[in-house]
């Protein structure tokens, strides 16, 4: 519901909305959803509640927000700097394992407690969720630079292949990291579970405090949006765009390629790290087998479908695809099967539907659902009627934030 509403509100406007309007819209929508789930749903009939559980379960919403956080990071790398990254899942995995290592009884040979609400008697490293968020982000930023460094001299396809390799290597290390010269790094395919719950204001969140988790995840998404928008309108953001449009011209104009590209990788990776930590607390564990290539592809699809380079578009794309993947398609399939007495396994056609959707998008709306105006102009350069929106609009809008 929420997704469609926001999409419509974006479509109805003829002139592009300013970033400030979008931000206020985002926050008020977040508040409305919060009020709806926390105060309205518990007082409704059982039938309505089970409808909500089928179509819009609150935990699917939280998971969709985790996807949003990761997609916003990928948007910086792909959407802003134009560096095609096919291995973004690696950062998600690293962030997740940071939470697994620092917020569970996994390393029971040590007994470190700091700022965590978990019982002091449990051995292992138990740090505060908020500290782990920062550490996960820093670790990912470091790995972002590590992956970025060898790719600096590469372009397009070759760059994608290197990132793809990185995205395969990291999860493999976690799958096989059970015995590294006697040291158990990742517990192999068994994974690490359970992970400590989030502590906030001295309260320890239980498994059913989804509304608190929702607020925390919204906050994290908002933080990433803020970072994206501020960087985008600043010196670094303009340098990213310059590289995206024409790398050679940018370097001729004095844009430091190495520094700028590494910054894109690092900032994007931070977001992946945040998503990883959030994900580990969301599912209460971390499992190596989950971090597959398909996750990177879905993230990329979110960015492309939503509108590369536009944080709001990416957010809409991420919410939409995450919902389709986790709830929408199975629920719709069940509905169709029970109405028409058919027996079609809808979820098995997910990738077919995604594929068709992406092809249609590329044919009719290459710029994405909510395009960045600069990109839209570029893609429609050949169109006959055009010129209502000048590129300087975009810059002035984003500067207004």
């Amino acid at each position, binding site marked *: 519901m929420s997704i469609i509403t926001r999409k419509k509100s974006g479509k109805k406007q003829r002139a592009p909305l300013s970033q400030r309007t979008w931000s206020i819209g985002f926050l008020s929508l977040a508040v409305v959803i919060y009020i709806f789930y926390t105060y309205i749903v518990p007082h409704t009939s059982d039938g309505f509640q089970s409808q909500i559980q089928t179509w819009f379960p609150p935990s699917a919403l939280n*998971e969709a927000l985790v996807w949003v956080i990761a997609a916003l990071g990928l948007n910086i790398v792909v959407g802003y700097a134009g560096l095609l990254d096919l291995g973004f899942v690696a950062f998600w995995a690293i962030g997740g394992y940071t939470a697994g290592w620092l917020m569970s009884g996994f390393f029971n040979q040590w007994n470190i407690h700091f700022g965590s609400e978990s019982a002091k008697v449990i051995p292992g490293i138990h740090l505060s969720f908020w500290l782990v968020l920062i550490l996960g982000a820093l670790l990912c930023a470091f790995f972002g630079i590590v992956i970025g460094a060898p790719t600096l001299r590469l372009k397009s396809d070759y760059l994608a292949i290197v990132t793809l390799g990185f995205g395969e290597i990291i999860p493999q290390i976690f799958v096989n990291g059970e015995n590294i010269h006697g040291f158990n790094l990742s517990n192999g395919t068994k994974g690490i579970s359970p992970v400590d719950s989030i502590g906030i204001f001295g309260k320890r969140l239980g498994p059913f405090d989804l509304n608190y988790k929702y607020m925390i995840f919204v906050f994290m998404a908002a933080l990433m949006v803020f970072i994206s928008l501020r960087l985008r309108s600043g010196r670094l953001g303009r340098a990213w765009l310059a590289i995206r449009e024409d790398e050679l011209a940018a370097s001729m104009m004095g844009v430091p390629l190495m520094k700028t590209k590494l910054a894109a990788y690092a900032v994007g990776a931070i977001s992946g790290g945040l998503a990883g930590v959030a994900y580990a607390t969301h599912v209460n564990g971390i499992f190596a087998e989950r971090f597959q290539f*398909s996750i990177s592809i879905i993230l990329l699809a979110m960015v492309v479908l939503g509108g590369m380079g536009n944080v709001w578009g990416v957010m809409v794309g991420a919410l939409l695809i995450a919902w389709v993947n986790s709830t929408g398609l199975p629920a719709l399939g069940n509905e169709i099967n029970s109405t028409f007495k058919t027996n079609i396994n809808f979820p098995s056609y997910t990738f077919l539907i995604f594929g068709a959707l992406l092809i249609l998008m590329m044919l009719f709306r290459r710029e994405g659902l909510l395009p960045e105006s600069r990109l839209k102009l570029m893609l429609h350069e050949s169109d006959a009627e055009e010129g209502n929106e000048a590129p300087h609009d975009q810059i002035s809008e984003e500067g207004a934030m």
Partner: protein
Amino acid sequence: MTKLTRVVSVVAAASMVATAFVAAAVPSQAAATKTLVIATDVPLQGSSFDSNDSTNKAIALYLKSIGGKVGKYSITLKYYDDATATAGAWDAGQCAQNAQAHVANKAEIAVIGTYNSGCAKIEVPILNQDPKGPMLMVSQANTNPGLTKSWNPGEPDVYYPTGVRNYARVCTTDDNQGSAAAQFAKSIGVKSVYVLNDTQTYGQGVAQAFTTEAKKDGLNVLSSGPAGQGWDATQSDYTALFQKIAPLNPDMVYFGGIYDNNGGQLLKDKVAVLGDNTKVKLMAPDGFTGYPQFNSDPNAAGAYLTFAGLSNELLVANNPTGAGAKFLASYKKTYGKAPVGSYPIYGVAALQVILAAIAKSDGTRKGVTEAVFSGTGVTIPAAQSVLGKALHISTLTGDTTAKDITVEQIVGGQETTLKAWTVK
């Protein structure tokens, strides 16, 4: 500022629509007989689809055959899928989401599932903390021992935050198979063993259980480490590994793992270096069963295999007129083909446990869980049990007492049943 007003008004309109929705929703009418919902929670995408689809069908068929009723309650089923297309298999996020939904759907009384132990490790703690529960989960397929008994540090208590058990299973665990293999090895006069594992969860589990039991039974375990020596599935040659083992002169080598992990090469090099399976015996768990390629390999002749539980064929052979055989016949009649794999029949066994618990309870989640874990617990008599023998769930651990292990031997390129082994 007009744009801002527009956005705010759209948002406000959306919230009003949502509220109207709420108001319009019809309150559910109270039924004459109380209807309870049993959920199944299995991956319905990816390679395990066929087996799990059969499980759902088998459960539905069995429920229909008993009239969809137990005691004063009528029972309906609700199917959950814990896989996503993105993952192509079970997905941790989906498991967390399903667990939340089980708790939130008020009519739901208990859950059959999950198929994967990793998924159960996510769902069990959530169901355990259900304010109206704990909510019972009975798995037909989780073989990881840590869910119910001491295994890795902290297990199984980490999965039961409230300190009360709510998870049971009707299948045997990996460690039972390892134990049975060690006991069997002793019974055929083996004095010393060398244990290998494929470094994966399953392989390490059985190898560890084998090692522990072998030591307990006084066998000389020549390999070091709790689960023996790992073999790397990506290696092209294991001659060096077996040359290291040869001077130790083991009576038997145990392959804890699955055949897919380069088991063929491992077998070839074992026979080449240590000699055939009459000279140095070979034993392997059910990860090596069901592979025609392994069975027909001349190097495999004489190898011993164990199988956890009873295959459908064995089940019918053991008790041709029992409830299990009858059920399998009616499944074939209804759907035109036999269920895929052995787990569907165990899914029905899980349903039987839940139905028995409901019959004994007051119809609440807490009551159903308590029916399994307190007092005399739940027992399915042999005459009714689809597994063909009495099934009792331990009130302390939630494990089944029907710990069937079948010992087989490769004779003439075929898996032949040697004997049924009951774990001591």
